[in-house]
């Protein structure tokens, strides 16, 4: 079976500094995968390389199409939604406008309107605040908004960069429950980058571990969670 996203020999650079050293991995269609690694391991760089936001070499194929040479906005238009580290919320705009922006490339206006209602069903807190400036939302609410904005694209693949960062454990559980639901019900393939390995492994079905720009471990999320050696040496818990 060929993967939906296929990454081969990926190297990425910040100026002269190399951050990824021949990264390889794949995502199967419909999977929920987590990419784990310590701070500075290269998780964010990997996601940025997929969206051509950092200089890189190697091959990245999405549904058989090579992504190299495409601009970020063209990659997004193929159906790859990216919730960046720090969420990328349009803080001076309203919650409604943030959701509209998520769907800005879509032509089916009626469906966009009904999708906004669907998002409000997924995330009721957002509905209460729909005319409020997004910057006034709490961290957890802003993360929900970032996920909802990404879903407005009706993506085939969603990339999330440390969605749990700075959130209380209860809110993380809530967010991950919704991600699981989106993955199952809306058939969105999801890649979650996390430092918080324990919760991420509960959520995901596949897992990769990244260390200094290389994949050092891959497998079934349960197997990795249950393997004490792996946990101790790579995940530190």
């Amino acid at each position, binding site marked *: 079976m060929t993967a939906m996203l296929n990454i081969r020999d990926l190297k990425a650079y910040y100026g002269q500094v190399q951050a990824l050293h021949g990264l390889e991995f794949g995502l199967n269609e419909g999977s929920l995968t987590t990419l784990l690694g310590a701070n500075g391991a290269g998780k964010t760089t990997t996601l940025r390389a997929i969206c051509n936001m950092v200089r890189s070499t190697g091959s990245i194929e999405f549904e058989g199409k090579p992504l190299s040479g495409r601009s970020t906005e063209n990659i997004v238009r193929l159906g790859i939604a990216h919730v960046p580290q720090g969420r990328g919320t349009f803080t*001076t705009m309203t919650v409604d406008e943030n959701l509209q922006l998520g769907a*800005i490339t879509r032509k089916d206006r009626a469906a966009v309107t009904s999708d906004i209602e669907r998002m409000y069903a997924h995330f009721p807190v957002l509905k209460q605040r729909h005319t409020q400036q997004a910057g006034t939302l709490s961290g957890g609410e802003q993360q929900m908004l970032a996920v909802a904005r990404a879903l407005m694209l009706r993506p085939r693949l969603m990339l999330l960069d440390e969605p749990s960062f700075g959130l209380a454990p209860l809110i993380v559980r809530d967010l991950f429950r919704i991600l699981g639901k989106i993955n199952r019900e809306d058939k969105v393939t999801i890649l979650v980058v996390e430092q918080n390995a324990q919760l991420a492994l509960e959520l995901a079905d596949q897992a990769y571990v990244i260390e200094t720009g290389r994949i050092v471990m891959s497998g079934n999320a349960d197997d990795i969670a249950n393997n004490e050696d792996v946990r101790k040496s790579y995940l530190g818990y």
Partner: protein
Amino acid sequence: MELLTNQILAGIATGAIYACMALAVVMIYQAIDHLNFAQGEMAMFSTFIAWQLMQWGVPYWWAFLATLALSFAGGVIIERALFKPLANAPILTHVAGFIALFAIINSVAGLTWDFTIKQFPTPFGSSPFLGSQLISTHQAGMIGVTLVLLLLLYFFFQFTRVGLAMRAAATLPESARLVGINTSWMVALGWGMAAAIGSIAGMLIAPVVFLEPNMMGGVLIYGFAAAVLGGLTSPFGAVVGGFLVGIFENLAGTYIPGVGNELKLPIALALIITVLVVKPNGLFGRAIVKRV
């Protein structure tokens, strides 16, 4: 008392020009995050194009519309040809680019149409407005056009997808790209709109100051001042700022002894600096609400 009303009305009328120019300044500021010093020259050049079309016998409103379209296209072309290649260059490179653009446009206009002043017609006539001696029909027309323009911009930014995309690209370019917006074209669009708005300002002021290559120098400074006063990020603020600067300039010239015509400009600028000391974002600048 009548003198006061008179001066305020006259201030509003000149303020309409500043407001129009300030709208162009705000447009470009939103798109590229700094000011375009050649904005006034671009407006002057547009006005010459309108004048030339009318010399060839094109009726006023057709010439007006054609000038809008040509100015828009010109703005987009200038951005694509000159400033897109500089997108990642340091700010001083841009400043050099603006100055070059200023000089080039000014001399090309001088070479093509020479430096003698020319009459520019007004479509509104110059009789007293509604029989009042205070304000002419041309001045009333200027105010009307500015307000209509503001309304159109408001609807564009609030209720159209392109307007929303432009705002997103201006505030957070990276996030904008991540929702699929082509931010580079949004910048070009901003240039086009700024050039078109500037051309309106030029065509409105030309009947008052006469058409010649240096006609926009003072106007642009007042336009900048108005935009800064209003907050640089708000079209509404730009228009209010324009009217305020116009009124203040007139009142200062009339009532503050020794000011007269020569010192109007520095007095107006001093007022603006005072406002900015108290309110650094301008009167209507974006107050960003943040919660951590």
